Protein backbone atom coordinates (compact mmCIF):
# COMPACT_ATOMS: atom_id res chain seq x y z
CA UNK A 1 0.00 0.00 0.00
CA UNK A 2 1.36 3.38 -0.96
CA UNK A 3 1.02 6.32 1.39
CA UNK A 4 -0.38 9.44 -0.17
CA UNK A 5 0.84 12.78 1.09
CA UNK A 6 -1.68 14.72 3.14
CA UNK A 7 -2.99 17.58 1.05
CA UNK A 8 -2.05 21.03 2.32
CA UNK A 9 -4.72 23.37 3.72
CA UNK A 10 -6.83 24.54 0.74
CA UNK A 11 -6.30 28.16 -0.15
CA UNK A 12 -9.54 30.14 -0.31
CA UNK A 13 -10.10 31.10 -3.91
CA UNK A 14 -10.19 34.84 -4.55
CA UNK A 15 -13.81 34.63 -5.82
CA UNK A 16 -14.90 33.15 -2.50
CA UNK A 17 -13.18 35.94 -0.55
CA UNK A 18 -15.47 38.37 -2.36
CA UNK A 19 -18.36 37.01 -0.33
CA UNK A 20 -16.77 38.14 2.93
CA UNK A 21 -16.76 41.79 1.90
CA UNK A 22 -19.57 43.83 3.47
CA UNK A 23 -22.60 44.60 1.33
CA UNK A 24 -22.55 48.20 0.16
CA UNK A 25 -25.67 48.34 -2.03
CA UNK A 26 -28.96 46.47 -2.27
CA UNK A 27 -31.72 46.79 -4.85
CA UNK A 28 -34.98 45.38 -3.55
CA UNK A 29 -37.97 44.46 -5.67
CA UNK A 30 -41.45 44.48 -4.13
CA UNK A 31 -43.82 42.62 -6.41
CA UNK A 32 -46.81 41.74 -4.21
CA UNK A 33 -49.64 43.82 -2.85
CA UNK A 34 -50.57 42.10 0.40
CA UNK A 35 -49.44 43.37 3.80
CA UNK A 36 -47.19 40.36 4.28
CA UNK A 37 -45.97 40.77 0.71
CA UNK A 38 -44.94 44.41 1.13
CA UNK A 39 -43.38 44.58 4.58
CA UNK A 40 -40.35 42.28 4.12
CA UNK A 41 -39.00 44.50 1.35
CA UNK A 42 -39.61 47.65 3.39
CA UNK A 43 -37.90 46.20 6.47
CA UNK A 44 -34.95 45.14 4.32
CA UNK A 45 -34.67 48.57 2.70
CA UNK A 46 -34.88 50.41 6.00
CA UNK A 47 -32.49 47.91 7.60
CA UNK A 48 -30.03 48.49 4.79
CA UNK A 49 -30.13 52.26 5.28
CA UNK A 50 -29.66 51.77 9.03
CA UNK A 51 -26.39 49.98 8.24
CA UNK A 52 -25.28 52.68 5.85
CA UNK A 53 -25.98 50.41 2.87
CA UNK A 54 -27.24 52.11 -0.28
CA UNK A 55 -30.81 50.96 -1.01
CA UNK A 56 -32.97 51.05 -4.11
CA UNK A 57 -36.61 49.95 -3.94
CA UNK A 58 -38.37 48.90 -7.10
CA UNK A 59 -42.15 48.43 -7.01
CA UNK A 60 -43.76 46.27 -9.66
CA UNK A 61 -47.19 44.71 -10.28
CA UNK A 62 -49.31 44.77 -7.14
CA UNK A 63 -46.29 45.88 -5.12
CA UNK A 64 -46.99 49.33 -6.57
CA UNK A 65 -49.98 49.59 -4.22
CA UNK A 66 -47.48 50.37 -1.46
CA UNK A 67 -46.57 53.61 -3.22
CA UNK A 68 -49.87 54.58 -4.85
CA UNK A 69 -51.62 57.47 -3.11
CA UNK A 70 -55.08 55.90 -3.25
CA UNK A 71 -53.99 52.36 -2.32
CA UNK A 72 -51.26 52.82 0.26
CA UNK A 73 -53.44 52.71 3.37
CA UNK A 74 -55.75 49.99 2.05
CA UNK A 75 -53.26 47.17 1.85
CA UNK A 76 -54.52 44.00 3.52
CA UNK A 77 -53.41 40.59 4.74
CA UNK A 78 -54.50 37.80 2.40
CA UNK A 79 -56.97 35.66 4.33
CA UNK A 80 -57.83 33.33 1.43
CA UNK A 81 -55.26 31.10 -0.20
CA UNK A 82 -52.87 31.84 2.67
CA UNK A 83 -52.48 28.50 4.45
CA UNK A 84 -49.75 29.82 6.77
CA UNK A 85 -52.28 32.20 8.34
CA UNK A 86 -54.20 29.22 9.79
CA UNK A 87 -57.62 30.64 8.89
CA UNK A 88 -59.95 28.14 7.15
CA UNK A 89 -60.74 29.23 3.58
CA UNK A 90 -64.51 29.65 4.07
CA UNK A 91 -63.90 31.73 7.18
CA UNK A 92 -61.22 33.79 5.45
CA UNK A 93 -63.60 34.55 2.59
CA UNK A 94 -66.21 36.17 4.83
CA UNK A 95 -66.74 39.88 4.26
CA UNK A 96 -64.67 41.94 6.64
CA UNK A 97 -62.32 39.09 7.52
CA UNK A 98 -59.22 40.42 5.79
CA UNK A 99 -59.93 43.86 7.22
CA UNK A 100 -60.17 42.37 10.71
CA UNK A 101 -56.98 40.34 10.44
CA UNK A 102 -55.17 43.33 8.94
CA UNK A 103 -56.23 45.60 11.81
CA UNK A 104 -55.06 43.01 14.37
CA UNK A 105 -51.72 42.68 12.67
CA UNK A 106 -51.25 46.43 12.35
CA UNK A 107 -52.02 46.89 16.04
CA UNK A 108 -49.31 44.39 16.90
CA UNK A 109 -46.85 46.08 14.55
CA UNK A 110 -47.54 49.47 16.09
CA UNK A 111 -46.71 48.00 19.53
CA UNK A 112 -43.38 46.92 18.05
CA UNK A 113 -42.85 50.41 16.62
CA UNK A 114 -43.18 49.21 13.02
CA UNK A 115 -44.78 52.05 11.06
CA UNK A 116 -47.79 51.72 8.74
CA UNK A 117 -46.85 51.44 5.07
CA UNK A 118 -47.25 55.12 4.15
CA UNK A 119 -45.08 56.31 7.01
CA UNK A 120 -42.56 53.53 6.41
CA UNK A 121 -42.17 54.37 2.73
CA UNK A 122 -41.55 58.03 3.58
CA UNK A 123 -39.08 57.05 6.30
CA UNK A 124 -37.08 54.98 3.82
CA UNK A 125 -37.03 57.87 1.35
CA UNK A 126 -35.97 60.30 4.10
CA UNK A 127 -33.16 57.91 5.05
CA UNK A 128 -31.78 58.20 1.54
CA UNK A 129 -33.39 55.10 0.02
CA UNK A 130 -34.42 55.57 -3.60
CA UNK A 131 -37.83 54.43 -4.75
CA UNK A 132 -38.96 53.61 -8.26
CA UNK A 133 -42.00 52.18 -10.02
CA UNK A 134 -41.83 49.67 -12.84
CA UNK A 135 -42.65 51.15 -16.25
CA UNK A 136 -44.14 47.94 -17.62
CA UNK A 137 -46.55 47.69 -14.69
CA UNK A 138 -47.34 51.40 -14.82
CA UNK A 139 -48.29 51.06 -18.49
CA UNK A 140 -50.32 47.92 -17.80
CA UNK A 141 -52.36 49.59 -15.08
CA UNK A 142 -52.63 52.90 -16.93
CA UNK A 143 -50.94 54.91 -14.19
CA UNK A 144 -49.12 58.25 -14.17
CA UNK A 145 -46.31 59.69 -12.02
CA UNK A 146 -48.90 61.83 -10.15
CA UNK A 147 -50.66 58.66 -8.92
CA UNK A 148 -47.59 57.82 -6.87
CA UNK A 149 -46.52 59.29 -3.53
CA UNK A 150 -43.76 61.91 -3.63
CA UNK A 151 -41.24 59.42 -2.27
CA UNK A 152 -41.21 57.68 -5.66
CA UNK A 153 -38.44 59.29 -7.67
CA UNK A 154 -39.19 58.00 -11.13
CA UNK A 155 -40.81 55.35 -13.32
CA UNK A 156 -38.06 53.18 -14.78
CA UNK A 157 -37.57 50.14 -16.99
CA UNK A 158 -36.13 46.80 -15.98
CA UNK A 159 -32.96 47.73 -17.90
CA UNK A 160 -32.63 50.92 -15.81
CA UNK A 161 -33.09 48.78 -12.72
CA UNK A 162 -30.30 46.40 -13.68
CA UNK A 163 -28.03 49.34 -14.35
CA UNK A 164 -28.62 50.87 -10.96
CA UNK A 165 -28.36 47.49 -9.24
CA UNK A 166 -24.90 46.85 -10.71
CA UNK A 167 -22.21 46.12 -8.16
CA UNK A 168 -24.74 45.38 -5.44
CA UNK A 169 -27.11 42.66 -4.35
CA UNK A 170 -30.60 42.17 -5.77
CA UNK A 171 -33.36 41.03 -3.42
CA UNK A 172 -36.65 39.87 -4.87
CA UNK A 173 -39.74 39.86 -2.69
Amino acid at each position, binding site marked *: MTMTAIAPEPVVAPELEEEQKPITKVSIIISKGTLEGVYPGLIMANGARMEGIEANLFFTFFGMDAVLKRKQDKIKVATVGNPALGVPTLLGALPGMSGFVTRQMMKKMEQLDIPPIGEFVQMIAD*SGGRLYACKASVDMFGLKKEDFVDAVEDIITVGDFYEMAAGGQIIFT
Partner: protein
Amino acid sequence: MPTLTMLDTALDVDAEGFLQKPEQWSEQIAAEIARENRIPTLTERHWKVVRYMRDRYLQTGSAPSIRTLGKESGVDIKELYKLFPKGPAKLAAKIGGIPKPKGCI
Protein backbone atom coordinates in the same frame (compact mmCIF):
# COMPACT_ATOMS: atom_id res chain seq x y z
CA MET B 1 -15.56 40.57 27.47
CA PRO B 2 -12.95 42.58 25.59
CA THR B 3 -11.70 45.84 27.05
CA LEU B 4 -10.76 48.93 25.17
CA THR B 5 -8.58 51.66 26.63
CA MET B 6 -9.66 55.11 25.66
CA LEU B 7 -8.36 58.32 27.21
CA ASP B 8 -6.74 56.27 29.99
CA THR B 9 -10.02 54.59 30.86
CA ALA B 10 -10.65 50.88 30.57
CA LEU B 11 -13.99 50.29 28.85
CA ASP B 12 -15.88 47.01 28.62
CA VAL B 13 -16.89 46.69 25.00
CA ASP B 14 -18.37 44.09 22.67
CA ALA B 15 -16.65 42.96 19.48
CA GLU B 16 -17.93 46.02 17.62
CA GLY B 17 -16.88 48.57 20.22
CA PHE B 18 -20.24 49.22 21.90
CA LEU B 19 -19.91 49.95 25.59
CA GLN B 20 -21.38 47.19 27.70
CA LYS B 21 -21.42 49.27 30.89
CA PRO B 22 -23.02 52.66 30.23
CA GLU B 23 -21.69 53.98 33.54
CA GLN B 24 -18.14 53.90 32.13
CA TRP B 25 -19.10 56.60 29.62
CA SER B 26 -18.23 60.28 29.67
CA GLU B 27 -18.69 63.13 27.22
CA GLN B 28 -14.98 63.02 26.40
CA ILE B 29 -15.26 59.35 25.54
CA ALA B 30 -18.27 60.15 23.38
CA ALA B 31 -16.25 62.71 21.45
CA GLU B 32 -13.41 60.20 21.03
CA ILE B 33 -15.73 57.47 19.75
CA ALA B 34 -17.23 59.98 17.33
CA ARG B 35 -13.77 60.93 16.05
CA GLU B 36 -12.90 57.28 15.49
CA ASN B 37 -16.12 56.92 13.51
CA ARG B 38 -15.34 59.79 11.20
CA ILE B 39 -17.34 62.46 12.97
CA PRO B 40 -14.59 64.93 13.88
CA THR B 41 -16.78 67.24 15.97
CA LEU B 42 -20.06 66.66 17.73
CA THR B 43 -22.35 69.62 17.16
CA GLU B 44 -25.32 70.54 19.34
CA ARG B 45 -27.53 68.61 16.92
CA HIS B 46 -25.38 65.47 17.32
CA TRP B 47 -25.53 65.85 21.10
CA LYS B 48 -29.31 66.22 21.02
CA VAL B 49 -29.59 62.80 19.37
CA VAL B 50 -26.91 61.13 21.50
CA ARG B 51 -28.42 62.43 24.75
CA TYR B 52 -31.91 61.35 23.72
CA MET B 53 -30.67 57.85 22.87
CA ARG B 54 -28.77 57.48 26.11
CA ASP B 55 -31.59 58.84 28.27
CA ARG B 56 -34.14 56.52 26.66
CA TYR B 57 -31.86 53.53 27.19
CA LEU B 58 -31.21 54.40 30.81
CA GLN B 59 -34.95 54.93 31.43
CA THR B 60 -36.38 51.95 29.55
CA GLY B 61 -33.50 49.49 29.24
CA SER B 62 -33.55 49.48 25.45
CA ALA B 63 -32.50 51.87 22.72
CA PRO B 64 -35.26 53.59 20.74
CA SER B 65 -36.02 52.51 17.16
CA ILE B 66 -35.03 54.77 14.29
CA ARG B 67 -38.71 55.63 13.93
CA THR B 68 -38.98 56.85 17.53
CA LEU B 69 -35.64 58.61 17.20
CA GLY B 70 -36.91 60.53 14.19
CA LYS B 71 -40.16 61.46 15.88
CA GLU B 72 -39.18 62.22 19.47
CA SER B 73 -35.56 63.30 19.60
CA GLY B 74 -36.32 66.63 17.95
CA VAL B 75 -34.18 65.68 14.97
CA ASP B 76 -36.02 64.28 11.94
CA ILE B 77 -34.96 61.29 9.81
CA LYS B 78 -33.43 63.38 7.02
CA GLU B 79 -31.25 65.30 9.44
CA LEU B 80 -30.37 62.15 11.39
CA TYR B 81 -28.85 60.63 8.27
CA LYS B 82 -26.99 63.86 7.50
CA LEU B 83 -25.50 63.92 11.01
CA PHE B 84 -24.72 60.17 11.09
CA PRO B 85 -24.40 59.02 7.46
CA LYS B 86 -23.54 55.40 8.18
CA GLY B 87 -26.65 54.72 10.26
CA PRO B 88 -27.86 57.03 13.04
CA ALA B 89 -29.38 54.42 15.37
CA LYS B 90 -26.22 52.37 15.68
CA LEU B 91 -23.73 55.21 15.69
CA ALA B 92 -25.62 57.42 18.12
CA ALA B 93 -25.87 54.41 20.44
CA LYS B 94 -22.15 53.75 20.18
CA ILE B 95 -21.28 57.38 20.83
CA GLY B 96 -23.82 57.47 23.65
CA GLY B 97 -22.05 54.61 25.41
CA ILE B 98 -24.96 52.15 25.37
CA PRO B 99 -25.02 48.55 24.10
CA LYS B 100 -25.79 47.83 20.46
CA PRO B 101 -29.50 48.29 19.76
CA LYS B 102 -31.37 45.05 19.23
CA GLY B 103 -34.21 44.95 16.74
CA CYS B 104 -34.89 45.37 13.08
CA ILE B 105 -36.37 48.84 13.17
